[in-house]
């Protein structure tokens, strides 16, 4: 699991960091992104480029996003 905590970065740097990490992601790896809001534009980029994601709000202002390139990896099982 690759941890990517982007909460302190100015918008839209977190999106760029996540896409850069996604480009280098192996099929069996998962990125755990922690962000202060739900990054909707990122989801479109991931979906259109063979990625999958699971997004949930931990508490107000903290979102956990799990990203993979694997078509069958269970992201629910990756939740911390």
């Amino acid at each position, binding site marked *: 699991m690759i941890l990517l905590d982007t909460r302190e970065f100015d918008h*839209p740097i977190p999106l760029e960091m996540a896409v850069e990490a996604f480009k280098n992601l192996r099929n069996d790896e998962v990125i755990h992104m922690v962000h*202060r*809001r739900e990054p909707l534009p990122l989801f479109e980029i991931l979906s259109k480029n063979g990625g999958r994601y699971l997004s949930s709000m931990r508490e107000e202002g903290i979102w956990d996003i799990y990203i993979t390139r694997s078509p069958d990896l269970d992201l629910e099982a990756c939740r911390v």
Partner: protein
Amino acid sequence: MYSGLSLDQAPPLGIVLRFFLAVPLFGAPLSLLILIHPAELLTPLHPYSLAALHLMFLGVMSMSMIGALFQMQSVLGGKPIPSPLGNGLIVHTLLSLGTLALAGAFFVSAPVLFVIASVLLGSAIVYTVQLVLPLLFGGITHDTLRGMRLALVSLALTALLGIVMASSYADASFGPRHEALRASHYSLGLIGWVGTLIIAVAFQVVEMFYVTAPYSAWCKRNAFWIIAGALVLKTVTLLAGWEYAWGFDLVIAALLLGFAATTLRRLRERKRRVSDVSIWFWNLGVSLLLLAVLAHTASLLGATDALERVALIAFALFGLSVILGMMGKIVPFLVWFHLSSAGYLDAPIMSNVIPAFRAKLLFGLFASAAAALLLGVFLPALFAAGGILGALMFALLFSNLLGALRLYRHTLAHGTRFTQE
């Protein structure tokens, strides 16, 4: 700003850039006017001064603000402007030709150009408002969208008063209400359109872009009601010929001072202290707003022409500073977002779309031009120097925007796409 951005709803990159690229093209003749005719531009109501004023507020500022509306509407409203390619072209063409006609009308004092400008600009603005305003209704309660509504209504009223005044210029017959119309035209254009749209955008982007504490909910909920109320009452008071219209200026001044002070404090107390040129533009812009409000308030007490000129120039520079800062942030993001969504593995990182040294140079030129123009109110030679600095700044802006467009097209033509394992 981009929390809801979807490629399917976003307008094509070319539409937004078409508006943005026109900004330096109008900035160039404006700078030339400042350089060649500084004394005339510093003379209130001189036709060259009015030509410059409309090149600035229509050709530079409204052009970029309407271009940004095409983008913002799809992001914030969730209801994108329909047929953005065709509608963008119509608005852009009418606004460009209308601004040129109006500036030309003042410059050569040609009555027929006032009529042509009225038709073109009236059409551009009415078309824009009827296109965007209906999308902002229907259960929408977002504070920024409320501000956009007020800004668009103000823009339409500004245009209406402008057309009435243009007809006076066309046949050189100024009625007894001409000064009241002018004062209302300025208030609705500067505060209702420019100021309100910038405040509405600030409520959304300052917190999101720069990780600051949010503006207070009370302020976001009520600011636009206060502006709208003060503008309506001021306009009625002016047109009815009653006294004390300046009282509503004081209400607006107090609100703008509060907005400026809060924004500066939010930016100063931000968590992450990384150098970012767009923050420099915001800080300088909001400081210029403070100067504009203080100079205008002082001019109400002392009624000096110089203070009124400082207020107007500082307010225009406030708007331009925020616009330049936002362009520097929006254009790299849009280039990156459109390419990344299309799957280009080698989409340039945002900091490479407009390199940092170019962004910093743009800020340096803008800040120097701003200082020269403001000091130039008292030393006209410096005002002309502001024209040279302005021309250099607009040339660099054009080069930066063109560079971003070229990079986008080059990646589209030669880039490598994601491979799916």
